[in-house]
């Protein structure tokens, strides 16, 4: 009998530990999910006011500015419908170019400027980051819908 009780106690303890571990795991998982928004969604105020998220689209032509001393840069990300001002301090990836696709991760600062702490551009000339492609597609769909409604 004693051995059996011991075993049951152990199984219960094991399940409890696993349950706690699973809860903590899922909590950490939820708090680290980074959602993606298109420039249009950000302009419409759909993006979170606090916390990190990603935006994606094209780097608007002629929008790239470097602040003269240091590594801070400013550029605009557009989905052709709306564009969002982004600031970033650091070194841009090799394939970052005006008119090319880009994804940036960071949060909204004051004056609706997106403060990026990561800028991603992939390693293939012809490859568009999926998020950026998605943003352009959505803007296009909305656009044609709007014209259709007229």
């Amino acid at each position: 009998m004693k051995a059996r009780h011991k075993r049951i106690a152990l199984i219960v303890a094991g399940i409890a530990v696993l349950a706690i571990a699973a809860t903590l795991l899922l909590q950490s998982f939820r708090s680290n999910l980074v959602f993606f928004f298109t420039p249009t969604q950000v302009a419409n105020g759909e993006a979170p006011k606090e916390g990190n998220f990603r935006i994606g689209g094209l780097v608007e032509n002629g929008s790239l500015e470097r602040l003269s001393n240091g590594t801070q840069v400013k550029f605009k990300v557009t989905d052709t419908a709306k564009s969002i001002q982004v600031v970033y301090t650091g070194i841009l990836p090799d394939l970052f170019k005006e008119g090319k696709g880009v994804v940036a991760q960071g949060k909204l600062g004051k004056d609706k400027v997106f403060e990026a702490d990561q800028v991603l551009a992939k390693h293939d000339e012809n490859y568009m980051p999926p998020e950026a492609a998605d943003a352009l597609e959505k803007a296009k769909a909305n656009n044609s819908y709007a014209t259709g409604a007229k």
Partner: protein
Amino acid sequence: MIPEIGHFSLILAFLFALIQSTLPFTGLAKNNQTFMNLAVPAARAQSILIAVSFLCLDYAFYSNDFSVLYVASTSNSNLPIIYRLAAIWGGHEGSMLLWVSILAIWTMAVTFFAKELPLRFYSTLIAVMGLVSVGLLMFILFTSNPFERLIPAALDGRDLNPLLQDPGMVFHPPLLYMGYVGFSVAFAFAIAALLDGRLDVTWARWTRPWTTAAWIFLTLGIALGSRWAYYELGWGGWWFWDAVENASFMPWLVGTALIHSLAVTEKRNAFKAWTVLLSICAFSLSLLGTFLVRSGVLTSVHAFASDPSRGMFILLFLAIVIGGALVLFALRAPTVGLGEKFDVVSRESLLLTNNVVLIVATGSVLLGTLYPLLIDAMGMGKISVGPPYFDAVFVAIMAPGIFLMGIGPVARWKKATLPELATKLRWAMAVSLVSALLVPSVLGKLTLMIFVGLLMAFWVMSSVFVALRIRLLASQNSTLLDKLKEITPAFYGMLVAHFGLAVFIFGVTMVKGYESEQDLRMQIGESVNVRGFDFRFDGVKPIRGPNYVAKQGLFYVTNQGAEHATLTPEKRLYPVQGAIMTEASISTGVMRDLYVSLGEELEQGAWSVRIYIKPFVQWIWMGALLMAIGGVLTLVDRRYRPISKKLNVESPGV
């Protein structure tokens, strides 16, 4: 003509694989020895034909045959010869051919030692490997033929992605695939055991070296890939929790659980059903990894949906292999039995906990990897799971496992007692606690993560010595040398591998805790001091490589006035693809790496520059290397001698 020969021999290989995978089963059902005996010759013929096919494709790369579509899309006549030969696995089709070629190597190796096993068993084993081969060959022949012609031929190729033009490309994919595909042997052993109803100590003894060998390759492959990323991507990271990396890491975690579980099965005849299940899981995750990396599902689930034939095929194949294996497991596991009983406090239960920890860790990585894909596939938006999730969860899950890892090797089989374990390990605990506080106080920075990381590293290191000491004390021999000789290579292997993990943890903790990263703007002649090192930027000069042009920066590094290193990072332009690449320049050292890479050219000759100091970063890969060496030591153990000898003949050098 040569590509057609390659294609044709691949088709023939497929036919032989069909024979290899069907007739032995028929033989088994009808108890017909002739049919069973066909397994070996069919498998060898299949392997040789695949090798021929592989060589034909590599010849097309060697001879710049741009009438082959695959060659035209991944190679270029200006590409240095070694990268032309490695470009064969630079794209999808060739990677799949590499996959089956490596399966052929493993199959061939199995046929050479198979005669030691009972006929019924080894013919089943080889037939199961044949089934895997059939699936993959069908996949190549129907959806990803690397020999497809391009008419008219291209004048020149589109070049190998410049990122891949690196010595890492030559070794990383074959090593990784040797590991991935090597788990197919353990898988075949498990299926054969289920079909045969035979699973005992002898079975575990046969399976173990194969599984360990696959695990060694996978360990080296992942470590090499990580080191490659570190110097090639130009921003000093060594692990990104990227889906492609996770895809290789998950089989490694389960494979690690498997080699521990196999140890218990061999030594104690326990954990039998569990070992079989792990074998199935390890190979399933290898296949899942192939699917994730090769179906295009990671680039975009929509790309996958618009050209679904490849992805659907692998998905179907996955479903058949995993589903079939699990159904078989459900039906037959009772015949295999659970094995010997053991006490709550015993080495068995510690190893069981280790297994649970590794599986939960795998589950957490799987969740983080697949969840974004699932959400995207269901049209619920795009999300990504940040590295902080993986870092936090992974450390939290592994920490208790690492703690138990110090206890396991000194615990008795079957029944141990807690007071006894505490007595054995109290000094190890004291030493590691003190060191984990001492090191940060000397370096002047202490965080919880640093403390936990160092504690785990020192704990494992010191408990390795405790385990060795206990063995030596138990020995009857008089001199120390005789005592050391008495201990088996397998035991040393375990100690070395555990020590390697400790070295790895130490490296990770030191880099994460004490690295210094600076992105700055530097004028020509300007100096900057980072952690006592003075970096002087002496400008850039143009240089010309075999198939690229570059601007090479010159950084002169001094340490307290004394000359320390000259670093020459490059910004390269590969004209064929118009791709720009950053080549970091690194001064490696045991205590720290100095890492410099060029950002962009700013006005008046100034550049934006990354200057990193990475303390003990090399220990990360040294630790992985030690783990692999530990694995090799267990392979040379006498009790596997007849098997390991042949293994050495058949598999290419580590």
